């Protein structure tokens, strides 16, 4: 008798704890593979690791080495240039296209599909295609010369000073449709009656957008910037496919830097340090944003 009720209580406790039991292994996976690994990488960045990981604590020596490497500065500079241009231009195109598409176009669905399809492609595919289009000698340069502009040169792809801009071009092509989609969704969420009131108040379409609609969309601006910034920081595939980090390391970015030092130059400590720097940057941007979003939804 007592045994039966014991089993029953056990069963009930199990049942109550079941959600936790189900989530726990999955969460533990997350814990191990994400936070455990982050901790490992962070620790390695504080050790004397070179070709192999070594666990002797070395303070911030690897970080000193990192910041002593000129290539790291190139990577950071490229990241800055790339991010500002990429985010700025993508947002500008995104807002423009979203506003245009909001004007009751009959073919809107098809046009939206066309604007967004690049997002479905791998960055490697994008990089490959644009590498061909921007090919010095056979790409745009050749086209322009055939069209009559005899002295037109477009060798950005192999030009140390300009190569980073080719990455911007390809990245904007891939992701501006995404910015457009986000803004269009935002525009559509504005209450129709507000637009009707504005129509009666007599505002011209331009004024309606700048004075009423876009201020309402301030949160969408923010989340789009955050998402694009996040994409920018992680840029690895595109750079590898388009320029290979070159010429030399002229288009190096923190992601390619880390990969080179980890798997090619086998300087694990420096690689780990660069990875930690990337993580800190992303955290600084993402965490406040996630916090405010999650707090909003819990209400």
């Amino acid at each position, binding site marked *: 008798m007592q045994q039966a009720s014991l089993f029953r209580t056990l069963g009930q406790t199990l049942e109550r704890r079941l959600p936790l039991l189900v989530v726990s292994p999955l969460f533990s996976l997350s814990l191990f593979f994400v936070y455990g690994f982050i901790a490992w990488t962070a620790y390695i960045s504080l050790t004397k690791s070179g070709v192999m990981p070594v666990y002797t604590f070395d303070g911030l020596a690897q970080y000193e080495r990192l910041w002593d490497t000129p290539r790291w500065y190139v990577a950071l500079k490229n990241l800055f240039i790339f991010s500002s241009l990429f985010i700025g231009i993508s947002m500008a195109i995104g807002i423009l296209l979203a506003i245009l598409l909001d004007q009751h176009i009959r073919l809107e669905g098809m046009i939206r599909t066309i604007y967004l399809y690049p997002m479905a492609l791998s960055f490697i595919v994008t990089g490959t295609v644009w590498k061909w289009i921007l090919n010095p000698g056979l790409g745009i340069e050749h086209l322009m010369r055939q069209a009559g502009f005899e002295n037109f040169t477009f060798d950005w792809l192999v030009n140390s000073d300009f190569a980073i801009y080719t990455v911007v071009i390809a990245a904007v092509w891939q992701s501006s449709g995404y910015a457009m989609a986000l803004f269009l969704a935002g525009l559509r969420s504005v*209450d129709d*009656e*507000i637009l*009707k*009131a*504005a*129509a*009666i*108040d*007599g*505002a*011209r379409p331009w*004024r309606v957008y700048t*004075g*009423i609609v876009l*201020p*309402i969309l*301030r949160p969408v601006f923010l989340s789009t910037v955050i998402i694009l910034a996040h994409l920018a920081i992680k840029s690895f595939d595109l750079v590898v496919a388009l320029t290979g980090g070159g010429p030399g390391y002229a288009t190096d970015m923190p992601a390619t830097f880390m990969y080179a030092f980890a798997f090619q130059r086998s300087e694990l400590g420096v690689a780990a340090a660069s990875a930690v720097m990337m993580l800190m940057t992303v955290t600084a941007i993402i965490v406040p944003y996630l916090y405010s979003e999650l707090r909003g939804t819990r209400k």
Partner: protein
Amino acid sequence: MAEGIRLQSVRKFFGANEVIKGIDLEIEPGEFVVLVGPSGCGKSTLLNLIAGLETLSGGDVFIGDEKVNTTPPRDRDIAMVFQSYALYPTKTVRQNITFGMETRRIPKARQEEAVTEFTRLLQIDRLLDRKPGQLSGGQRQRVAMGRALVRNPAVFLFDEPLSNLDAKLRIEMRTEIKKLHQRLGKTVVYVTHDQIEAMTLATRIAVMDNGHIRQVADPGTIYENPADLFVAGFMGSPPMNMIRGRLLRDGGLRVAPDGDEDGLLFPLPEDEAARIAAPEGHKVVLGLRPETIFAAGTELPGPDRYIFERRVEVVEPTGPDTMIVFQIGGQDVIARVRPEDARATGTPFSFEVDMGKAKLFDAATGKRL
């Protein structure tokens, strides 16, 4: 300076769906016309057509003497208050109210005057620097009205402005709107599904159903002289009792209710009997408002009364009155009696009905006979 409105053969299609089916309506300057009807009857669409927020599929709209079919809303000399108030969420109350004036390049001084005058009138002058998110529903409604008032238009349009307010606030605002109309004398077109709002606010009511206007008249006429079954059933709460039956001519016009086994025969007054030409046996609907049926002998005697006895089925006290539900030929009928006259369920009850107030409708067409 108020203007009249004229709708001529107005039609509206949404795709293949005909939502407004050829409407004619004349609104005199200064009138308060209420468009009332059930959901989907097209009243909001009609209002939008007047405002220019929907394009006409057919017919013409005139505001004053001007045909405004292709005039954009901003140029129609109208102002509108929306159901959801439609305030600009990122602007302060003051900016919300002055936005339209800015667009029309009205000098700042005049803008300030208008803002002061109307916000004081609507008692929102202390809220000028708040944003809509910081206001209550009633306050937002007043701001929406203020925005409309400062336009000083020829016509005011209201699209169910009180639907989002709680009952008590709704009654308060109703009175305010009525006072404003009396004070300003502008033409108002007001849409609502609430027939009490319609009755209390309107100088004339247009009852709409399924894209048509069934009747346009002042509230009294709509209530006492409904043109058909729909209008009679829509206006009035609790609704008019509709008793199906046949006409009998045996020394007077009487209605014999369908399915009745107790020999009830409702006699119609002589002038009605003389007026109505329908033959014996004609299928009719007898309309009796609950307040015309009361406990026998509790009112001063009068002509055209009919007394009959029925069993009480349900008793519904409402406070000032008590509703008694009984049956005639299987149909439920509601009578309104004083609370002290009510009897318990199941007991026989003597009802007296004032047949002078009865309305007779053709059962097939629904039209008033």
